[in-house]
């Protein structure tokens, strides 16, 4: 339509892309339309888009990739051809720079690329498999056993049985297959017969330690695709998108009672086996509360429908997850964002709602709830909601709004605990007036919500609790400890730290101190603050003061991620921290930065240097790096430190 030169179109397009900050459906639709209308400039537009994706900061990669996704699905050729050429590079670069939740969205998107174009009768996938297979291979390679998890559980990482799971097609890949199914079999599981599933869903990640004592999950540690939960019937492979408010009649109370009891038993077991898991405890408390509501008999029909709807939503999300963003099954009754949702080929028209509803109604509540227990920590659900059938230029459907009517406080607690959806099902036609965080107001943990009104009410009992929770105070700095054995031990270490610091201060005073240079972005991102008594120690066993670098990065200090899954799962022997895999475009492989191999084991290069060279330290240790530490000629920091040393 435009007779403009490609340059101008491209420049224009670039400008529009730069405005794309969030996952805004309208902007993405608009960018898709522009691409469609300027199809004669497809090459220029593709180039601009690809460059934009590669250069965008991590936070903007996903929206930018959604533009690519939308164009590929809605415009198709020749864009798919242009994108296809560099798809691997674009995808992997983005994947290596974003965090775990976004990675999951990328994985979901990738999966839709291997499926037919939504709404199309042709079985041809969005991108030819030739373009996506190398990404799948790289991702499979990327996935290493979850180090944080393996440290707490019996070694189930045995390469030999793992091979049995592997699709023979991948036998030739350079990296031996992992102990969990690679992407291809994850995809295949969509069509697996439910009868083959274990009775109770125990995907690998349910053995993950509860977050209270686990390391931060390394992004790559999350299984690429969730294993399918057991589907009661195969019909769930095509869940519907519209839970909608269901008529209030027909909630089988007796069945609810039975199901709750059943679930409570499950939750008790969960609590007993995971004593540190606050989530499990809360879940149990929630179920007991739910039981109270039912026993009291004064739950309104609406409350009951609420509960049932939520459970259905959760179940539907779960069912839908491998196919499409889970949000598509649950339209939260909160004003929604105009977010873009990658289209999938299995979207169903709303017409099937009633059929699905009856299916949900017949589902055993216990099964449904059980399936949701324990998954919250293991995965993050995408934040976008489906109101798009076409994904492009569809006006947003009027979303339901939270209601201002008072509800059962116990139910509110359940909402706060995440068992019920975050806001009550509104009666139709009620105006929006519930503050956004009201759902959390009655969380058992805290009663204060972030509303100007709630903040005004004095809570002396909460203040008393906060001030008395840690009765054991350090008389030097005022830091507080609990009065139990753990607290006492901590305090003893803390006092020891004070003592040693004081000795070092006297020594430092003689030499004279100076301000250090500030850390740069890379160092800061990799740094971690330690409590004074818990941080790393220097060569003489003296804890390093405060903030300390954990991962000093040196360009040459990387290794390719070992193929052996056992080796891959072992943490650094010195600090017991797992290694972090990342994709290196240069090496064209996954690497561990700041790592060295010594005598068959892998160490953090920084840990290793610290332990082996620590003795030559001059006693004055800076909290950041330290003089003489890591002083290599090619490290900026090292060079600087070396200079300091020469001239000091």
């Amino acid at each position: 339509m435009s007779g403009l030169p490609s340059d101008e179109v491209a420049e224009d397009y670039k400008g529009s892309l730069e405005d794309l900050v969030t996952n805004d459906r309208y902007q993405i639709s608009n960018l898709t339309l522009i691409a469609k209308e300027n199809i004669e400039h497809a090459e220029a537009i593709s180039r601009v888009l690809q460059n934009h994706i590669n250069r965008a900061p991590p936070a903007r990669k996903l929206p930018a990739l959604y533009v690519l996704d939308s164009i590929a699905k809605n415009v198709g050729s020749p864009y798919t051809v242009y994108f296809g050429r560099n798809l691997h590079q674009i995808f992997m670069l983005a994947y290596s720079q974003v965090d775990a939740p976004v990675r999951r969205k990328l994985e979901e998107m990738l999966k839709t690329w291997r499926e037919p174009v939504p709404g199309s009768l042709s079985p041809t996938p969005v991108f030819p498999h030739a373009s996506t297979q190398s990404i799948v291979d790289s991702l499979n390679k990327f996935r290493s056993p979850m180090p944080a998890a393996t440290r707490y559980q019996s070694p189930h990482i045995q390469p030999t049985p793992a091979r049995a799971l592997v699709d023979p097609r991948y036998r030739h890949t350079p990296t031996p297959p992992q102990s969990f199914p690679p992407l291809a079999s994850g995809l295949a599981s969509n069509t697996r017969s439910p009868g083959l599933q274990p009775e109770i869903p125990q995907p690998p990640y349910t053995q993950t330690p509860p977050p209270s004592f686990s390391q931060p999950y390394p992004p790559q540690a999350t299984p690429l695709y969730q294993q399918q939960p057991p589907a009661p019937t195969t019909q769930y492979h095509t869940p519907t998108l519209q839970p909608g408010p269901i008529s209030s009649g027909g909630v089988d109370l007796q069945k609810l009672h039975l199901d709750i009891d059943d679930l409570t038993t499950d939750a008790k077991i969960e609590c007993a086996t995971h004593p540190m898991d606050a989530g499990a405890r809360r879940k149990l408390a929630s179920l007991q509360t739910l039981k109270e509501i039912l026993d009291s008999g004064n739950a309104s029909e609406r409350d009951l429908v609420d509960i049932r709807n939520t459970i259905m939503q959760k179940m539907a999300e779960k069912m839908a997850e491998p196919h499409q963003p889970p949000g598509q099954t649950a339209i939260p009754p909160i004003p929604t964002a105009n977010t873009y949702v990658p289209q999938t080929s299995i979207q169903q028209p709303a017409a099937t709602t009633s059929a699905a509803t009856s299916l949900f109604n017949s589902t055993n509540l216990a099964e449904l709830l059980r399936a949701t227990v324990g998954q919250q920590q293991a995965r993050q659900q995408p934040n976008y909601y489906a109101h798009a059938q076409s994904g492009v230029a569809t006006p947003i459907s009027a979303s339901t709004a939270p209601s201002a009517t008072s509800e059962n406080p116990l139910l509110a607690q359940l909402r706060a605990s995440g068992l019920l959806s975050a806001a009550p099902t509104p009666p139709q036609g009620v105006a929006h007036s519930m503050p956004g965080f009201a759902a959390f107001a009655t969380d058992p943990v805290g009663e204060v919500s972030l509303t100007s009104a709630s903040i005004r009410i004095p809570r002396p009992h909460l203040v008393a609790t906060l001030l008395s929770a840690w009765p054991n105070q350090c008389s030097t700095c005022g830091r507080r400890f609990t009065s139990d054995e753990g607290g006492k031990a901590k305090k003893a270490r803390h006092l020891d730290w004070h003592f040693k610091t004081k000795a070092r201060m006297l020594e430092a005073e003689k030499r004279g101190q100076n301000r250090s240079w500030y850390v740069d972005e890379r160092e800061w991102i990799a740094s971690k603050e330690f409590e004074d008594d818990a941080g790393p120690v220097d060569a003489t066993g003296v804890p390093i003061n405060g903030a300390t670098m954990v991962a000093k990065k040196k360009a040459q200090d990387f290794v390719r991620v070992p193929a052996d899954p056992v080796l891959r799962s072992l943490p650094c022997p010195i600090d017991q921290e797992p290694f972090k895999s990342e994709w290196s475009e240069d090496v064209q492989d996954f690497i561990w930065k700041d790592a060295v191999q010594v005598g068959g084991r892998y160490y953090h290069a920084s840990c290793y240097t610290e332990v082996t060279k620590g003795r030559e330290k001059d006693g004055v240790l800076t909290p950041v790096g330290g003089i003489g530490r890591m002083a290599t000629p090619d490290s900026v920091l090292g060079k600087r430190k070396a200079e300091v040393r020469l001239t000091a």
Partner: protein
Amino acid sequence: MSLPGLGLDEPEEVHTAETSQHDLAKDNEWRFEVAVGKYIQLKLLRGTAELFGTELVIGNTYTFTATKAAIYTWHGCSFEVRGDALQSEYIAEETPMSEYINVHFALETLRDQAKAHGRQGPRVLILGPDNAGKSSLAKILTGYSNRSSRSPLVLNLDVKEGVMSIPGTFTATVFKTLMDIEEGWGTAPMSGPNGAIPVKLPLVYFYGSPRPEEKEGKVYKAQIRRLALAISGRLANDAETRESGLIIDTPGSLTSSKTGQVGYDIIQDIVSEFAVSTIICLGSERLYSDMVKRFDRQPTVSRSTTAGHAETISVIKLTKSGGCVDRDEAYMQAFRAAQIKAYFYGNPRLSNGISLQPRQQQVDFSTLTVWRRISSTPDPSSSASVGASFDDEDEETFLPGGMTDDASGTYPGGSSSKVALPASQIYERVSAPYAAMRNAILAVMNCEAEAEQETIRDSSVMGFLYVTDTDEARGRISLLSPVAGRVPARAIVWAGWPEPVLGIDRS
């Protein structure tokens, strides 16, 4: 004319230096002000007391200088004060502490939920005019967070006041350990240990002006985007901080009607870049209603929310503390000078303080790569400019980068600019030292000396230098550097603010 820090222009009562005992009733607050260069010692005798959320220990002596602060007690306490005369002091019976601690409780609930579900903790944005008590609230929320064993990331975007660095900077710092009561926040790393309070590690960016709204906020926004990037990197690595969330302090001018639309645009950017989930408005009803209109119950930009948990923004207003006395410009200037001095020399008179030894050196100017920010520093080729005010906000002698990729485009039409510079140019290379540079603060950037303009703008700071003298005839410059050794071969930026500090090296 007022003398900075001596308080000669302030008609407030002045106390003599003697020991005085104060008894503070439950829920009361003792507000006090110590001028720059004055020192007081405070000792808690009985009861419990805290300074901006951080507890005082009975029997310890705390030294304060260049401070406006408040000692609050939940249970009642007695303390004694000695030392120099106070600038002002009084006891307040009405305080907003119960509101502030309620915010902490609400945030704790969100942090628990974040931890349980692997989500991001609350991202709190504090807004309000100057002197509304924003940074006090930020400290209080941080102090309570530490008491609840959290480690929030404190983001100071208020370029007028330095947090863990000098004024004119943005900083991001994780507070896992106790805040330093005497230093206000804490102290940045030194070559040795820091007494009883562990040092904190700030990431520092240099804005170099007190006005975020300058150039339609484009420079400010560009740097904020860069900072947001670094923070998202950190949060991805650091689960504790991710769950504890962000506490963001902002410049008062963003909410000023004088600043106009630009201020709100910047707020919009901050809300979206940091996926703000809670907006706290202090001391302005108009601000509160504007923010409610714009943001309340809007979805956050967070990437870690779940479908079952649609996170929305809460906008709340809190009562401004009556203790937020307007601080005049003379006080602020003296305070800035004190902060800069503490950067180089430390503050050995504080009980936790350490005497630092910066290095003085004279170097051949040609070995340095100094860039002056065009609009805010005197043009060396203009004889009239030396000593003049470089404050004209209307002078659009540069446009920030990122707008055009090539420098070829348009030239500014500014009448005051005698040499037309490319529109995209932010900095101009200074080839020889000149007198206007004396007593200036220079920022050493973490980037190549000859980096692109935008790269220099967006780089984090390695440290600061102070120009003690210039020798135009011999082309040499005398510098004070925190660290001994050659000046790093990096881009060095002279922005003109914080303003020149006289005689920092002679003390």
